[in-house]
């Protein structure tokens, strides 16, 4: 009897403990801190770091992905070597695989658990993520930092749709560019095209040149990747994805013309038939493996394209790069893709987090990383400060790509900063994919516009 009572007692205790843990866990809702109250003041060094080390011994966690990306790897190593030595703050980079990273950002910014102090996000998620981010305007002003350091699309992404508020500081960004096999262009006596018509005509010559397809397109579904070229063409032709009221604007004559031109790159047989299903990785791999003569992609890809350890050596020695073509008499507009870093409003270490954010996004930190070519796995050409993009030394070390980007990004744009963007992007990427598979362009664009109108009215 006593034994039974004992068993019941233990079970009851165990159940109570589990329930207490559950209730406790549910009850610990995140609380928001006031960033200004958390940030210490005092004398600073040339990088803006507080020389009195007020956060010495603090450990902060950064929610990030893609550890092997050269720029990320370089910044992590520099953090341990330089930042921790100067401030006493240790930084842990959480490396979440990219495939599940966007969900993790949402979980951390929208639900919030207090696990992380800082977060990095790609531009398209800014409007959704800002619910969990601290506005940075005032601390930036105090630290004499400004979004004017960056190109227009990076500034747009940092504001995440609020013209008056800064939610993150750009630390990684690039324009969309034309990469091509330099030797084929020389052999055929052609220069990188200035207009899309000219580009199409060149692709006729490049078809089969060197035993390769002319162009590696990407028309498959994968996180909106088949929209990158399309949006740049749309904007350059004076059309838009959404109008000022957030309603579809891509069915204008200019929008339809741009879409027809985009699909013609595939339908005219310049891009392999398989590219109807290709993602960004598929198309760049095709170029890296020497199957295609040209590809449109992000500037950072130069780090891979020019690395004989990552691509065929013949390809690595034969890369040319130019700005995207445009439309006659109209300014060329590229999509400027941005990664930003911000402070989570549930963090208990916001002062230390700001200290790290200041250092990591400082132009001098970025310059050091861009000039350091001592190790292959950390060598990167990515710079986002206009000052660094125009720096002769930085350009000399990075194929003159930074100044090409600076020029392209002057007219650059970012994706529409609306919380409906994930749904809108889905409708558009499906429409592009279906058109790549033969759907009529005009009705398909109107159908997509109708779907977007419905979902934005909900």
């Amino acid at each position, binding site marked *: *009897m006593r034994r*039974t009572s004992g*068993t*019941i007692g233990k*079970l009851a205790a*165990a*159940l109570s403990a*589990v329930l207490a843990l*559950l209730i406790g866990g549910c009850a610990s809702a995140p609380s928001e801190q006031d960033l200004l109250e958390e940030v210490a003041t005092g004398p600073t060094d040339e990088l803006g770091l507080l020389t009195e080390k007020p956060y010495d011994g603090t450990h902060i966690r950064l929610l990030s992905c893609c550890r092997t990306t050269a720029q990320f790897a370089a910044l992590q190593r520099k953090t341990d070597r330089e930042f921790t030595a100067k401030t006493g703050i240790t930084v842990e980079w959480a490396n979440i695989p990219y495939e599940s990273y*966007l*969900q993790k950002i*949402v979980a951390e910014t*929208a*639900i*919030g658990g207090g696990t992380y102090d800082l977060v990095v996000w790609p531009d398209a998620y800014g*409007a*959704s*993520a800002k*619910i969990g981010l601290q506005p940075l305007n005032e601390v930036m002003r105090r630290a004499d930092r400004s979004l004017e350091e960056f190109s227009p699309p990076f500034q747009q992404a940092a504001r995440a749709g609020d013209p008056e508020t800064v939610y993150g500081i750009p630390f990684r960004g690039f324009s969309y560019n034309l990469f091509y096999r330099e030797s084929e262009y020389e052999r055929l006596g052609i220069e990188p095209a200035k207009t899309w018509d000219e580009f199409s005509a060149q692709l006729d010559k490049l078809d089969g040149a060197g035993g390769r397809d002319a162009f590696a397109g990407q028309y*498959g*579904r*994968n996180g909106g990747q088949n929209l990158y070229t399309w949006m740049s063409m749309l904007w350059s032709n004076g059309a838009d994805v959404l109008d000022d009221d957030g309603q579809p604007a891509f069915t204008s004559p200019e929008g339809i013309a741009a879409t027809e031109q985009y699909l013609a790159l595939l339908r005219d047989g310049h891009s*392999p*038939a*398989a590219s*109807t*299903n290709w*993602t960004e990785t*598929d198309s760049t791999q*095709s170029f890296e*493996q020497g*199957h295609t003569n040209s590809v449109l992609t992000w500037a950072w890809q130069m780090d891979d394209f020019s690395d004989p350890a990552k691509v065929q050596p013949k390809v690595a020695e034969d890369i040319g790069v130019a700005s995207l073509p445009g439309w006659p008499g109209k300014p060329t507009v590229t999509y400027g893709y941005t990664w930003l870093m911000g402070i989570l409003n549930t963090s208990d270490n916001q002062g230390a987090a700001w200290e790290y954010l200041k250092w990591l996004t400082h132009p001098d930190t970025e310059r050091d990383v861009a000039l350091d070519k001592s190790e292959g796995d950390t060598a990167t050409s990515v710079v986002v400060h206009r000052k660094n993009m125009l720096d002769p030394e930085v350009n000399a070390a990075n194929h003159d790509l930074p100044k090409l980007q600076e020029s392209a990004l002057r007219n650059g744009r970012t994706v529409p900063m609306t*919380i409906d963007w*994930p*749904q809108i992007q*889905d409708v558009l990427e*499906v429409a592009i*994919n*279906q058109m*790549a*598979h033969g*759907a009529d362009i005009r009705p398909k664009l109107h159908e997509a516009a109708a779907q977007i109108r419905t979902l934005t009215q909900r």
Partner: protein
Amino acid sequence: MAATTVQRPRSRSPLRKHSVPYLHLAPALLAVVLTTVYPLVSALITSFRHWRLNETREAGEFVGLAQYQRVFTDDTFFNSALVTLNFTVISVVLSVGLGLCIALILNNRTRLSALTKALLILPFAVAPALKGFSWRFMLNPDTGVYDKMLDSVLPFADNINWLGDPFWALMVLALTEVWGWAPLIALMLLGGLNSISPEVREAARIDGANAWQQFWRVTFPLLRPLLLIVVFLKAVFSVKIFDQVVTTTGGGPGRATESLNFFAYSQGFTFLDIGYASAVSWVIVLVLGVLAALYLIAMARQEAK
């Protein structure tokens, strides 16, 4: 005769007596409540509320059946339902049909039977996500090894973009599933075949039945209860298809391979509309519930026999 007093053991109270087994079950029940019942109930409540993660941290106002009305007026939901139905029918028919063929072949014992049976389990042991990536890579029209093999054997296949054509993309998805499941089903059916007495077939043979008649009139009826269970089990797993959609086709081309689970996932974790995703998930739960009930009924009938 001296009277002796027999000390009868004090009987336990009926309540206490009955509660002990339940208390021993409690930890397991608690685990089920926490991991299954609580999320289901929570999702049910959320399905009646407006909640987009990029608008508010907490679930918003109650909207009654609005999310369910939206489900049943959403063309993309119906597309996903149709895709799932097609996928389920194709994958169940092929998996069970092929599994049965393999089982019948392996039922003739040879020296290699044991080794073959051991090898059969390998495809099922491959992680679905890995399976998806591998098939996607192998069917690449430019560099894929399967594509090259098929092109050399079937000339008409030369121009087929396996993952770029809506029909073939769904077929490929089904085939990745069949590749994993048919061997497992074969092993399950082999167990069933082994339980059929050889004398029954021998008697049919003596009565003049040919091989087909032996199978159709003797083996198949005896195997039917097990086949029914296998069909329901496979159907439940087919309706749940998700990993391979993500890794093989991403739901494309267009929306040709968007399954119900992929649709629910997109609503919740890509579009951040948790309220709507909960409603979609509950519709899927109901569909799976019907299949599970049919499965349990089939099991019960078999046990009754």
